[in-house]
């Protein structure tokens, strides 16, 4: 977030010139420190007028239930819902709690999306040429993908880099595979506890990571790699593939403006369900219920998410705008990430959340598969045990 300081400061200056209201953006890094800061502020009842939450949807729900977040539904639906309709629906859905949600939150829209992202596969076109591949024809199927892995291994190159040292990012690809292999309903049934993680489809999902590792597709050290290092390797032409979010457009532009890369969907594995990617989520802002300046805060957010401001923010920070009217006008580098938005999904839109302990077991288990310490079956069994334990604990 701190890399957007100049753009936010400029927007604050413009808003003050227009309305006379002074807005001060405070940006913090690293994200973990910010997440704890917001929790501490909530405990001390001194949250700012507008703030963001970094965390799972469960944390978002807890903030709402604790009475810290204003329900923005009336503002969204005022004037025939013009504000609500200005957003990319998937982006808004992330900030919404529908009727009957499992979090026990009163239905409503509780936050405003500022930008969105999708997480995709990227490939280095120059390295594709070196491998004797057509740089305009990225692999379509998993078999083609593995074949390229074998070529990479034979050429002594590094394959796919990503921030898989962080559990959420390895889980992201696992979720993509899971949605594609077994479909959304079965994934959600697993989260509800109706399908065990030892189901053959889940074992197949885990097995894909083993196949990728065995083929030579994964770069050395990917299991402890932080995303910043992965980005540096890909930007410097040291890795053929990357698995990264749309924020990388800005990062690569800064690291290596001449980087020649393409964006592709994860390769197709089965035919029954479409390929799926994570997307829609980005930065969202909430209004503090206890703020004496609630009305001013909402008015500022309405201005901030209007077309002109969204276009400025998108151009200045190379991020995908949350305002749907802007998507047609974004640069081509960003558009490559936006065009598959309809295939995107995100856990925060599912209406049900997996236990964090299960997510940790899943991500760490996949790391164990990649380092050839455990088999897909062992990991499936371990994740199932964690799931059963956490479900029993929650019932108690």
């Amino acid at each position: 977030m701190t890399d957007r300081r100049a753009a936010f400061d400029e927007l604050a200056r413009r808003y003050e010139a227009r309305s006379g209201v002074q807005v001060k953006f405070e940006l913090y890094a690293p994200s973990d420190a910010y997440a704890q800061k917001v929790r501490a502020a909530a405990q001390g009842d001194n949250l700012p007028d507008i703030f963001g939450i970094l965390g799972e949807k469960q944390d978002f729900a807890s903030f709402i239930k604790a009475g810290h977040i204003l329900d923005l539904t009336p503002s969204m639906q005022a004037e025939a819902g013009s504000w609500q309709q200005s957003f990319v629906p998937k982006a808004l859905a992330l900030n919404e709690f529908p009727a009957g949600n499992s979090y026990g939150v009163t239905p409503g829209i509780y936050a405003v999306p500022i930008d969105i992202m999708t997480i995709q596969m990227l490939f280095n076109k120059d390295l594709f040429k070196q491998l004797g591949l057509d740089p305009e024809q990225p692999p379509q199927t998993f078999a083609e993908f593995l074949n390229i892995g074998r070529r990479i291994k034979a050429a002594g190159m590094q394959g796919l880099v990503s921030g898989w040292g962080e559990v959420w990012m390895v889980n992201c690809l696992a979720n993509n595979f899971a949605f594609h292999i077994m479909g959304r309903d079965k994934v959600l049934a697993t989260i509800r506890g109706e399908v065990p993680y030892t189901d053959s489809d889940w074992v197949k999902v885990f097995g894909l990571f083993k196949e990728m590792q065995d083929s030579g597709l994964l770069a050395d050290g990917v299991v402890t790699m932080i995303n910043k290092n992965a980005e540096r390797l890909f930007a410097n032409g040291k890795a053929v593939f990357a698995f990264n979010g749309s924020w990388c457009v800005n990062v690569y532009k800064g690291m290596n403006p001449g980087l020649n890369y393409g964006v592709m969907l994860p390769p197709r594995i089965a035919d029954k369900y479409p390929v799926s990617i994570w997307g829609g989520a980005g930065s969202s802002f909430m209004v503090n219920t206890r703020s004496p300046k609630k009305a001013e805060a909402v008015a500022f957010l309405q201005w901030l998410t209007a077309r002109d401001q969204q276009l400025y923010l998108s151009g200045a920070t190379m991020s995908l705008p949350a305002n749907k009217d802007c998507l047609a006008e974004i640069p081509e580098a960003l558009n490559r990430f936006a065009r598959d938005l309809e295939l995107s999904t995100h856990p925060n839109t599912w209406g049900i959340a997996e236990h964090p302990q299960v997510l940790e077991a899943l991500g760490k288990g996949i790391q164990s598969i990649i380092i050839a310490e455990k088999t897909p079956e062992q990991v499936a069994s371990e994740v199932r045990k964690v799931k059963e334990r956490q479900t029993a604990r929650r019932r108690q």
Partner: protein
Amino acid sequence: MKLKSILENYIFVFPATLIFVIFYLIPFIWVFQLGLYEWDGIVPAKVFVGLGNFKEILFEDRIWWDSMRNAGYITLIALTLQNTLAFLLAWACDRQMRMKNFYRVLFFIPPVLSEVVVGLVWQWILDGHYGLLNGWLTYAGFPALARSWLSDPHTALTTVAIVHCWKGFGWGFLIFLAGLQTIPRELYEAARVDGANAWSTFKNIMLPLMMPVAALVAILTILGTMQGFVMIIAMTDGGPAYHTQVPVLRILASMRGTSRFGYACAQGISFGFILVALSFIQYRFSRWTRDSA
């Protein structure tokens, strides 16, 4: 008059007592209290679970005990490798050698560096792709030894332990050096006049007199190493899988990863008890060895 004097005394200690109560005593009691609850750190309502969190730590949380074993392994290496190195270097600097002041400064540089910076620098040195170590190994004709030191499950924990030793040996060096300098030179001279050789001087003079210092260094090493986590976050963040997880990382994971503040407090209390027990055992052991000597 006497009452006035007593009141004055109380007024003098009041600010310090107030600070102690607010910043130490109340949080300490709070942590114990929170350990008995399930709480996500946000909603005001906390669910009382009694000793449930402690039961889960003891009987169900295998990763917690794995992290304890990892911390124990790093501590063992620190107690042996790090402290032996610290003692030998202190011994060398205590003798009449050239540039000993320069070495004293040099050996104390790693401890004063930021742990995050040290972790990131070593991560860069040990990186499997562009790391200096692999570059040197390849240049020296040992390309087969090159590897992703921090991502290989066979080397990750030992590598982290060695970096920890590099970062920490300066403290032991300083304390050992101070201890060696308190030994009267006359004792060495008397031993030499009596015909004692180097080993005999070491065994009968230096070792017994340095035992209290060694005990102090050992206790500080145990407490410091068991609680270490900053460099590990910077180098591996506990990975690959759980291979470099340590207890403080697990406590952090409970707080920021799974939002289980009550469980994190229970982990902290359990960990505190283990550290006190280890320190007590170490203290008794060092007393026993000193008395035996």
